[in-house]
Structures are given as structure tokens and as C-alpha cells.
């Protein structure tokens, strides 16, 4: 039984009323969900439409060989239920889509996004900004990883950091690969910032970059762009569904 109250630096925090949505049950989402479940969050939402593949197993730690071919949300639920029976698990066996994204994220206190494609990353950013839900973005490719936390007020946001969807020349893990241990480090940083949101730490705007070759972990605070297309003077008021029409599934 996982205790809902956890010791933290000499005092105790109660996370049993917190609700966290994990978007993408890949190399980041799996260890992030594992950490969050054992950290005593009350509700853990799992959003992914993929099935477990053999090539996932070296870094997607909630899955085993017997899970190959199984929907990720189902296999992850089994693992997490065994690890942390007190956590309420909500499964969303779908990709994040523009039509329902805002309603989905609105049911949670914080979102942890570890998608393998830019469309889902930007869509998560838009939905969380419009629903006023904090989000922690994470990504890892080869030996590099980044984590970025957006607070309740939505500033600075993911589009302050990266203004728009990349046009060619940017790599994802499916093309470039990712070192298995990298995602563990990056996902731990994501979970830490998500727990920071829950615990009331000021983590908004923090950008963590990790270089897996040198071991350098760097933490910076990002400033909001005055003309940001999501949270600045040109802020959007709804999700542009056409923009995400070609959105691909989260990993």
C-alpha cells in the first residue's frame, strides 16, 4: 500500500487529492508515471493510443515481453496497479486530438507530456494554456534531453520557448533513436517538476537540459515572450483544429 503522505525534507506532504495526466506512455511517460504513482498522487490519467512493441521494452519500464501487442494504457495500468494499489488510474486509450484536448486536460491538476511528435507537444501546450492547467513538457533524443515546466497562469509557455512547429530538419526519437538511460533521467526531472507543481514549489518557467554524454544538467529560467502566440499579446482563444489536422499519435 502506498502511503498518501510522503516524507519530504523533514516535512510531510499530502498528494492524495492530486490528479496528474500523463500524455504519451513511451520512454518518458512510463518512468514518469512510475515515479508519480509511488509519490502518492491520488489520480493518474494515462493517455496513449499505441500498443506495446518489442522495440519499446529497453526504455519503457512499465512493460514486459508478455505485454507486446497489448494497448499501452492497459499494460501500464496493470503495472501501476501492482506497484501502487491506492492510486486511482484513469485510462484514455486515444491520441490527444484537438476536439477533446481541452476537456481532457481540464480534469487534472497537472499534465506531464512526453509525446514523440511535435504536433502533440504543441497541442498539449495549447490545451493546457486554454484550460489553465500546468504542464511539464519533456523530450529526449539520442543523448540530449529537455524538460520545461509551465505554471497555472500559463506564462512563460512552450511557445515562449519554441514559437512554432518545426519545419523539417528536426529529429524525433523514431528517426534518431534515444539512449535508454536518457529517458530515465529526463522523466525523473519531469516527475520532479510535476510534483513541484503539486507541492506548491515555484517551478514555472524552469528549463532543464541534460547532456547524456557529459552528464551536464543545466537549469535555466525561461522568460515569457511579449508577443508569444499562446500566452502573449497575440494569444489564441481556441485551438486551431486545422493546424493539428495531421497530428500523429503520442508514443
Amino acid at each position, binding site marked *: 500500500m502506498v502511503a498518501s503522505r510522503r516524507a519530504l525534507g523533514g516535512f510531510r506532504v499530502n498528494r492524495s487529492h492530486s490528479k496528474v495526466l500523463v500524455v*504519451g506512455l*513511451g*520512454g*518518458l*511517460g512510463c518512468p514518469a508515471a512510475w515515479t508519480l504513482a509511488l509519490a502518492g498522487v491520488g489520480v493518474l490519467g494515462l493517455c496513449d493510443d499505441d500498443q506495446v512493441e518489442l522495440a519499446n521494452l529497453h*526504455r519503457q519500464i512499465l512493460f514486459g515481453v508478455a505485454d507486446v501487442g497489448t494497448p499501452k494504457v492497459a499494460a501500464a495500468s496493470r503495472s501501476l496497479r501492482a506497484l501502487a494499489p491506492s492510486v486511482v488510474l484513469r485510462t484514455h486509450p486515444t491520441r490527444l486530438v484537438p476536439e477533446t484536448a481541452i476537456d481532457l486536460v481540464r480534469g487534472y491538476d497537472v499534465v506531464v507530456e*512526453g*509525446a*514523440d*511528435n*511535435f504536433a*502533440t*507537444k504543441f497541442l498539449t501546450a495549447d490545451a493546457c494554456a486554454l484550460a489553465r492547467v500546468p504542464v511539464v513538457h*519533456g*523530450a*529526449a*533524443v*539520442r*543523448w*540530449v534531453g*529537455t524538460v520545461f515546466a509551465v505554471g497555472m497562469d500559463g506564462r512563460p509557455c512552450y511557445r515562449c*520557448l*519554441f*514559437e*512554432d*512547429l*518545426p*519545419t523539417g*530538419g*528536426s*529529429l*524525433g*526519437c*523514431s528517426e*534518431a533513436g*534515444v539512449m535508454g538511460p536518457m*529517458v530515465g533521467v*529526463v*522523466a525523473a526531472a519531469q516527475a520532479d517538476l510535476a510534483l513541484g507543481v503539486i507541492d506548491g514549489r515555484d517551478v514555472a518557467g524552469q*528549463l532543464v*537540459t541534460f*547532456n*547524456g*554524454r*557529459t552528464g551536464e544538467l*543545466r537549469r*535555466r*529560467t*525561461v*522568460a515569457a*515572450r511579449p508577443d508569444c502566440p499562446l500566452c502573449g499579446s497575440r494569444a489564441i482563444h481556441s485551438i486551431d483544429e486545422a493546424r493539428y489536422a495531421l497530428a500523429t499519435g503520442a*508514443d
Partner: protein
Amino acid sequence: MSTIIRIPTPLRTLTSGVDEVTVTGATVGEALEDLDRKHPGIRERLMDEKGIRRFVNVYVGDEDVRFLDGLRTPLKAGDDISIVPAIAGG
């Protein structure tokens, strides 16, 4: 004046795998131009006709050059430049 530019993994295919390149230049723009002279093609990945691409961040130390003076940001001894491109994956 020489400055070290840290090259992120996704761009190291353009630097023969090198993760740090020493360049010369009095400004960030000059440093990036020198980087492109040493490793042709990398400029295209970092900049377009309007300046630094919208999905790339360039830092001098811990400061995003967009909030300094962009490509005209002056460099001083001991500065290091790091590049944080948008990546997706895990």
C-alpha cells in the same frame, strides 16, 4: 576573441560528431557565422532570413539571446554559447 559553442546531439551530424566548437566573433551572429564556416550547413538549421529560427533557442550562458540583443548580442571573454533546439521523443 574565441568562444565555445556547445552543439546539441541532433545537430552533431553537421559537426562530424563534435560537441563543442571553438569559434571567433565579437557577437553571437559573428560566432554563428564562424561556426558555419567551420561546419558548412549548420547555419541553415539555426537561422532563416528573419534570424534565429522559431524552434531554436540560442543562449549565452543562461540568457536567451532573444532577450538580449539577438544576433547582435556582444560576447565577452569566458562566454559560452549553447543551442537548445526543439526536440520530440522519448
